């Protein structure tokens, strides 16, 4: 059902009005809690508070790229239009998050490690992730025909998934300056609950905001691709209720 552009448009119209405020409130709540109310760290003092944006942004960038890879696979193999739309909608916010991860990581590294940047496996592969995002966006802008552009970008998106795996496991496979993961999917996390909850909340908030951004961009793309259809023509002359 979500494969139909028209259905997607109506569906997202009903989701965005409540998802947007929930995302913003969750993110702000997590950040205010983390910045102002969570206790300081026994070793790092207050510089550790960068974690509340660094970890959500990094995990969002990685998850976004996995989603981009899946959209790429569907776009290349099944040639589904919505997958092509998603390929275009997922990339920009992911690129922003990857950039945030690198910048906040550098600003956290200086006071704790003593350096903004080292070419260790984690940081280098994260930089490659940003380039991958930029590559996917650039391919879509350079190739005129949207369907061909989607196929090329889809292939690059799939190839880049290998790099996502390297980012994730680099800290376990080779010696890096960067420490291991704080939040573990399995097993106990090594972060005190008073710091873990604000982290989880800001993470959820940023992920939801990512979803909002993707829905907004996908709607624009759907509208443009379906511009010759009757339902878009009707929408343009008579905006639906609650829209500008």
């Amino acid at each position, binding site marked *: 059902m979500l494969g139909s552009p028209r259905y997607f448009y109506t569906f997202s119209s009903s989701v965005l009005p409540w998802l947007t405020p929930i995302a913003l409130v969750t993110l702000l709540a997590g950040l205010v809690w983390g*910045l102002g109310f969570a206790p*300081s760290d026994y070793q790092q003092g207050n510089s550790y508070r960068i974690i509340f944006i660094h970890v959500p942004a990094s995990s969002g960038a990685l998850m976004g790229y996995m989603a981009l890879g899946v959209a790429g696979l569907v776009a290349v193999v099944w040639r589904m239009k919505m997958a092509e739309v998603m390929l275009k909608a997922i990339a920009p916010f992911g690129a922003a998050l990857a*950039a945030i991860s690198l910048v906040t990581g550098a*600003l956290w590294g200086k*006071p704790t490690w003593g350096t903004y940047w080292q070419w260790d496996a984690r940081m280098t592969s994260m930089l490659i992730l940003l380039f991958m995002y930029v590559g996917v966006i650039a391919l879509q802008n350079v190739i005129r025909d949207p369907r061909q552009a989607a196929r090329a970008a889809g292939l690059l998106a799939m190839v880049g998934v290998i790099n996502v795996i390297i980012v994730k496991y680099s800290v376990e496979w080779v010696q890096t300056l960067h420490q291991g993961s704080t939040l573990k999917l399995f097993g106990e996390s090594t972060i005190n609950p008073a710091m873990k909850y604000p982290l989880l909340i800001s993470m959820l908030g940023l992920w939801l905001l990512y979803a909002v951004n993707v829905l*907004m961009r996908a709607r*624009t793309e759907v509208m443009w691709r379906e511009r010759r259809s009757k339902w*878009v*023509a009707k929408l343009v002359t008579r*905006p639906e209720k609650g829209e500008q």
Partner: protein
Amino acid sequence: MAFESFADFLAMGKHGFYVWSAYGISAFLIIASMVLALRGQGQVRQTLARQQRRAELDAEVNDESRT
């Protein structure tokens, strides 16, 4: 509150520069991406509305020239 005063909060120990520039740059990038997404939607809508109006005008002109 984990801090004694608002000044303490801004100082973040002695790491205020790092913490606040990290959050400042993050806020800028997130807000920029949201604004661009919103603006793109408006632009496409406007372009389509303009095209449609022109098509309707053309149709009217054609009708008049036929009579």
